[in-house]
């Protein structure tokens, strides 16, 4: 190869790659007392700093501190811990089932449990959730049946999506959980339309949408920002910055600043929050939901966290990530942090934790057995074969009826 070009391009690079020793000491982490908490109807121009700082409640010793402390009851905190642990154990089990060939695919949210759990708890049941594949915690908070979730992953005869979707792409209308698309980010701008309709009808429900930091590069995120800002739609726009998009580091999509900063260009309240701090996540969500419900319009939230596992069951992160990155992650493990917080407040113990885990493990095992009894992907039973032609349209048109007859032949 002739090397005549002296490229002047600049290429974003990951902080660490395989072989490197991760060291996040360059990351400046504000203490909980540094973030001011504006009135929920305040002018966005007065809170630009929140886009560059980081709202935290739990300090390094897991004590709750600062203006954003949501002052949750012990019951709520314990419930949050339970939801998070449930999410983690569920994920673990499903992932192992994938490895055993029972599921075609799986995506864990290890290390990110506080986000879905904290946000779902701060929202109302009637609020509509536009989730990605990595907010399964939303479903646990809304008490979606374990067996139902598993049947969805198994694409079996009891799958409410009739065997049509990949595992983790749930849909649950009754629970106001919108059908997850395999196409990244498309739900983000749809959520704005949903919120506009809610406002149009004069209703109080709001929408909340999530997107990965990598996917935030898609057009739909821009349109969500713009449309929600233009019509002041009651919607929470959440970017989950878990540092990685498959093998690609977050700075490929950040433009060299925080993700939250992107909301400033649309005059939106834009807040970066410690996504591994259940209390902070809850507080920011509660604030934004109140704002939206009061007519203050959208809030743009960056949830700062770390994807502790592989992207999905299809990739091996050792090929592109340094070993022990998670262990070096300065914001810790959200489950551990909440647990310590409660223990420090003498409202929880290691024994209770163990008991909780054992209970949940058992429940999940039982649910799995039950779910399998409704069929597995490979061996069935599935939905009746002819259901394949349902729901393309509300009613089956003639050409699909003809095709169905052909299939049955």
């Amino acid at each position: 190869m002739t090397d005549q070009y002296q490229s002047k391009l600049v290429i974003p690079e990951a902080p660490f790659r395989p072989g490197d020793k991760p060291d996040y000491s360059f990351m400046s982490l504000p203490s909980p007392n540094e973030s001011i908490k504006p009135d929920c109807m305040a002018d966005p121009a007065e809170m630009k700093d929140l886009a560059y700082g980081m709202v935290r409640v739990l300090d390094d010793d897991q004590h709750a501190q600062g203006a954003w402390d949501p002052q949750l009851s012990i019951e709520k905190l314990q419930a949050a811990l339970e939801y998070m642990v449930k999410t983690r154990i569920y994920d673990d089990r499903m992932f192992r089932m994938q490895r055993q060939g029972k599921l075609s695919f799986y995506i864990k949210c290890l290390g990110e449990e506080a986000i879905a759990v904290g946000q779902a708890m701060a929202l109302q049941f009637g609020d509509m959730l536009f989730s990605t594949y990595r907010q399964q915690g939303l479903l646990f908070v809304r008490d979606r049946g374990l067996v139902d979730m598993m049947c969805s992953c198994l694409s079996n005869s009891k799958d409410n999506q009739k065997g049509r979707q990949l595992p983790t792409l749930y849909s649950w209308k009754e629970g106001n959980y919108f059908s997850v698309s395999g196409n990244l980010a498309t739900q983000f701008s749809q959520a704005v339309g949903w919120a506009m309709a809610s406002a149009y009808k004069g209703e109080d429900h709001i929408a909340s949408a999530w997107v990965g930091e990598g996917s935030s590069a898609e057009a739909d995120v821009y349109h969500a920002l713009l449309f929600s800002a233009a019509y002041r739609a009651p919607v929470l726009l959440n970017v989950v910055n878990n540092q990685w998009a498959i093998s690609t580091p977050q700075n490929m999509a950040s433009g060299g600043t925080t993700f939250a900063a992107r909301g400033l260009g649309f005059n939106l309240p834009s807040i970066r929050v410690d996504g591994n701090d259940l209390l902070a996540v809850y507080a920011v969500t509660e604030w934004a939901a109140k704002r939206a419900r009061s007519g203050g319009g959208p809030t743009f939230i960056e949830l700062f966290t770390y994807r502790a596992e592989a992207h999905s069951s299809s990739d091996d992160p050792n090929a592109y990530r340094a070993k022990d990155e998670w262990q070096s992650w300065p914001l810790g493990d959200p489950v551990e942090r909440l647990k310590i917080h409660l223990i420090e407040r003498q409202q929880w113990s290691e024994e209770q934790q163990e008991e909780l885990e054992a209970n949940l493990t058992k429940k999940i095992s039982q649910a799995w057995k039950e779910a399998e009894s409704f069929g597995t992907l490979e061996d069935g039973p599935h939905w009746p074969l002819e259901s394949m032609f349902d729901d393309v349209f509300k009613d089956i048109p003639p050409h699909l009826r003809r095709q169905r007859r052909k299939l049955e032949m």
Partner: protein
Amino acid sequence: MATMSMVQAINSALDITMERDQNVLCLGEDVGYFGGVFRCTAGLQEKYGQHRVLDTPIAEAGIIAAAIGMGVNGLRPVAEIQFADYIYPAFDQIVSELARLRYRSGGEFFAPVTVRAPCGGGIRGGQTHSQSPEGIFTHVCGLKVIMPSNPYDAKGLLISSIEDDDPIIFFEPKRCYNGPFYGDPHQQAVSWAGHPKGEVPEVYYTIPIGEAAIVRPGSEVTVLTYGTMVHVAEAAIEKSGIDAELIDLRTLLPLDIDAIVESLQKTHRCVVIHEATRTSGYGAELIADIQEECFWFLEAPIVRVTGWDTPYPHAFEWHYFPGQERIIEAMKSTLET
């Protein structure tokens, strides 16, 4: 009964559905205060307010996404794409989302969105104000695709579309907005007044989705087309003296294949016409279907008359446009055998 242009008929359909159901709303670029660059939404914002006839940012993907979200939340949005040529930025939202939502969610969610877009050439609009992309959408399962050719059908089909629970791509042949066009740009333009299909009831009525219309019965050859080309074909048939049966498909998907087969049983010959480019256009699907259904009584190859496989060129608009001469020649070629 009133005389209406296609623009007025569309406006009337929107007005009536909005009057009957407050879940119906309109959104799109310049549709609100201005009433649309083709005036299809004129007067509606004044009547129904800014909250129901929404001007939007210039972002077709954002418009369709918003409409999907609204549809999921119980509304019946009618989204206007200013020109069919500008539907492509919204392609992912239409194809991956709007069309597939009901299926992928096992029937839990759906969005009854109607997407309106003026299409077709013949207005000196150059290559980005002249396209006919209907064929592409017929390949996307989950969408219904409609293109009326006249005011009466436009109103009835648009009301049906808005009331339909499936997503609809509703193409409006803009060359016929203000009058039927017979293919000769040098002829004096005529209005819809005087054309039987320009007589439009002011009241509510519907035309079923999925039914073709026989514009002109005939015995020698079946001519299949839709939109502007219906009128061009009609003029060509008249001029040629050929006793052709002209069918206006009106709905491309689902297709009224029965009406087609019935006609072919009589004529044994077929010409398919559209303005869109030829290769993999909707005409190909028609032919593939017909030759399978009618093989044993077809007496000549089915011939396509279409736009050429080039963009719509500004200066050569009338050489691009599949005009009367090409249609006559095609009909003749099927009769020669």
